[in-house]
């Protein structure tokens, strides 16, 4: 598969997703870039803005396995990861895989579950394997977690801890669609039907191939140092309690590569970095004196990041 073919595939994937999620091409583009970079996605906004639709559209476009886990406060780690059960016939314990064993996992309302169940995802998301009792089971490749949460309703929720948030490559905030798109939505009311009618355009093998191609996208030294300076600035900012992690820096680079690839380029420009940095870094910086996880913190984080992006001289 050369890059021409890859681009054709990607444009089909993109149009596939955009048919069900109207007027959100920027967010779709970022989500696909993260998908190409192998980064998990956290979708965050009020209910009814299409978070689940986006997750399902991406998964439906790939002919891999798809599982959905509805996170509730009584969810247990075993319900997510799987459990050893005693096989009476073989007189031994056999592993019964949980819903995590799939190519794409949709973790719906992730902040509704207790921290135990949330942290069951930790190993899976970073090492792409799960350990149950004494055994370790590898997860399928590609493996992608798409989680959704509603930050505005904090009652009865468990905000994601820093370590968990850091595992997500990207946090996207889907706001209300613009006027035209919403009018179209109301008029056509295709929400229920269209996403079921999506045809897969990619097989898992092709996804692995695309990822290899994305990794080969050139990132010049000036861009690397630009990313470093942005990440460094989040750590020095006086209002920030905890700055972005090295994983965040790697995430910016990978997602920028994905974005460049989606735009048909084989190199990353500073513009790619400027577009990805807010989505990749905002949920990784924690402000001093703000309650964690709330919508105000997210907005303040975005303001700080845009200030940093304005202040750091971009390479020309």
């Amino acid at each position, binding site marked *: 598969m050369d890059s021409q073919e890859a681009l054709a595939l990607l444009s089909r994937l993109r149009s596939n997703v955009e048919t069900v999620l109207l007027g959100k091409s*920027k967010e779709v583009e970022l989500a696909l870039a993260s998908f190409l970079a192998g980064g998990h996605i956290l979708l965050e906004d009020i209910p009814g803005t299409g978070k689940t639709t986006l997750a399902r559209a991406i998964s439906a476009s790939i002919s891999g396995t798809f599982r959905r886990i509805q996170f509730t406060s009584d969810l247990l780690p075993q319900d997510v990861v799987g459990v050893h059960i005693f096989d009476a016939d073989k007189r031994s314990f056999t592993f019964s895989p949980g819903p995590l064993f799939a190519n794409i996992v949709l973790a719906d309302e992730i902040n509704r579950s207790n921290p135990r169940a949330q942290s069951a995802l930790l190993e899976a998301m970073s090492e792409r394997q799960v350990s149950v009792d004494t055994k370790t089971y590898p997860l399928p490749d590609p493996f992608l977690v798409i989680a959704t949460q509603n930050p505005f309703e904090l009652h009865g929720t468990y905000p994601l801890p820093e370590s968990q948030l850091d595992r997500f490559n990207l946090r996207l905030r889907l706001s209300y669609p613009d006027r035209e798109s919403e009018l179209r939505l109301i008029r056509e009311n295709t929400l229920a039907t269209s996403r079921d009618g999506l045809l897969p355009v990619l097989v898992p093998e092709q996804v692995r191939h695309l990822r290899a191609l994305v990794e080969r996208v*050139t990132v*010049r*030294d*000036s*861009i690397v*140092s*630009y990313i470093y*300076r942005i990440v*460094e*600035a989040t750590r*020095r*900012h*006086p209002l920030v309690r905890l700055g972005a992690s090295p994983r965040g820096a790697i995430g910016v680079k990978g997602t920028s590569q994905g974005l460049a690839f989606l735009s048909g*380029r*084989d*190199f*990353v*420009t*500073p*513009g790619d970095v*400027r*577009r990805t940095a*807010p989505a990749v870094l905002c949920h990784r910086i924690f402000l001093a004196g703000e309650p964690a996880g709330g919508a105000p913190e997210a907005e303040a984080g975005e303001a700080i990041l*845009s200030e*940093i*992006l*304005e*202040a*750091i*001289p*971009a*390479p*020309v």
Partner: protein
Amino acid sequence: MRRTEERARIPGALWFSLRIHWAFGLLPLAFLTEISRPGVAVAAAAFLAGAVLDWTSAPRGGWHRAASPLLVVGAAAAAADLAWGSRDLLTSVSLLLLGIQSIKFLLPKSPRDGWQLCAISFLEFLAAAASTTEIRFAAFLFLFLGLSAGAMWALQAEEAADTGGGAVPRARPGFAVLLLLLSAVAGFCMTAVLFAVTPRVGIGQFLRRPGTRVGIAGFSDAISLRDVTSVKADRRVVARIEFPELAAGVSPSGLYLRGATYARFDGTKWSRAESPLETVPKAGSHYSLSPQAVVPLSSAEIFLEPMSHSALFVYAGAISVEGALGEIRTDGGGNYLLPAKGSAVRYRVRFAPAGSARRNRSANPDGSYLSLPPGSDGIRELAIQATSRAASDAERAELARRFFQSGFRYSLTDAASSVEEFLFRKRAGYCEHYAAGLTLLLRAAGVPARVAAGYLGGEWSDVGKYLIVRQSDAHAWTEAWIGGRWVTLDATPPLGEDSPFFARTGTIGMYLDWSRQRWNKYVVNYSLAMQAEAVSGGWFALRRATMRIRGAIGMPAGNLARGGFAVGMAAVALLLAWRTGRSGASRYPRGTSEGDSPLPRPYARLFRRLSSAGRRRSPGTLLEEMLLAAVGENPHLLPDATRFLPLYNRDRFGPRPLSSAESTEAARLANLLRRGLISRRSSSQIRSTASFENGPAIAVDRPANGRRVHPRRPEAGRPKG
């Protein structure tokens, strides 16, 4: 300009300082020069109206149509003034300037008008500076400079608001202090260098209209007895005199500063001798008044205020005058006339102090110094009576002078109305009576004599070590030809502090006068010679200091000094290192990426062009964003920009270098775009108003944060809501 939003964004102090800065050029013009008063009044009215309109953010969208007709009216007024009014180019040009300023006050369109108004007020300042010698100007200048900082800040903020660049820049006090300190040091060094290398000529010589002339009256061609009373109550300063050779702690006294001599007396009035005027011989700026060189000489640096007459004041026994004074003429009888009246002058007089020995080589004065008015037999008898015992002219003069010390009294109010009355009947008068009486008495006794007028003494300023001569120091005395020279004889009884006109200046007044004297000396009447003196003096001081330091270091017992010097240097180095280290640890790393290849020239020029057009909102702005924003206003450049950007991106960030054809194409496109952006200025104005009338303007997406930026449009025309 953006009225409501601007007021919300810019702090009130900045808003006011900008407005005051705009109007500040009018103050010196109004107070210090004689520029057309109606013009200044119109500009002031326009300023007030504009400020009120700005403050109330009244809409004046349609008013801009009036700008061009108003400009034509202003130009016509200026032309009419040139043709029929003042007939002076400077006045007409300043009228035109005032007209443009008024229009801009009333109908500002964009922040560029703000900059232009600042520039206009600066030009007005220059015009005032060129035509004033007032110390008040310095106060205006200081205020103006202080306001400038606030005004620049306000303009920057306005521009930022206009380009959508966000809020007012936050002030960083530490940075500001550092900047001020550095600029002060740099400014001082630059001033010193400029001072040393730039040739200077006193501004006083260029003093022409429309500067105000503070004329000081007196010393006309003739004086009568009544002339002095009006003058005695006048406290205005006539001259300030420094005595460079005077020992410290000594103040000069009893010095007669002579402005005129009068030889002819017709019974009521003294007038000058009618001899033809000759030019005083000069070599460079050195005028020789009297050929003899006599030792020892004293010298006096005289700063004369502008006078309404052209007399040059010298001390009795003046040998030479130095200064750039033009052509000096003399009647040969002690009167020296400057070529022009009404300007402040500075010169140095060398004179022989009274009582010093002089060799006599001048010819005796002619008979006019012995003539008496008809019917002066009483005076002759009086002269014989008073001086019969004397054997020589000197003794005769002394006896004549003593004659006035008994039986006569000094009175301004109850003075005699004629010399005869003074001598024979009333015996009461003031300096002019005494001077005239003594002169006539000497002439009757056969000693050539004349009346001299000028100033006696003055107030010594201990603050600045100079003599303040006021109009109230005016005096008249007698000069007699004794022993081959004119000797000063003063019959008036010395009054000193008993004089009704004696008034001591207060400390504050002294300091004020001192600052004025410095202003006159170092600003208004500064000359090349003084500059050379100062530079050589500074140079010698520097060399002396160097020698002293070298001596201290080179001393055998100077280990302590050497150690101290080393410690001091190390401390300075450490301080510098600490400073740089701290500035390196700023919140954001500086510079673009390290180890990055430098920006090729065509790109760099395009980048600079976009930056100077205000497209670089912040350091983080990409060339791509700047170009797209600029192209949003110039859609005809769009095809070039869309071809240029991929090439540029690939060249700067791509894996492989461009082929030579591609890089030529990229450079060509970059130059094309740059030129297109330069020539856009005039056309963009027209098009932007058009885009307003046609509906929504082009919006340019900024991809990084998804914000939308509208291209700049004149805000006055923007509909509300």
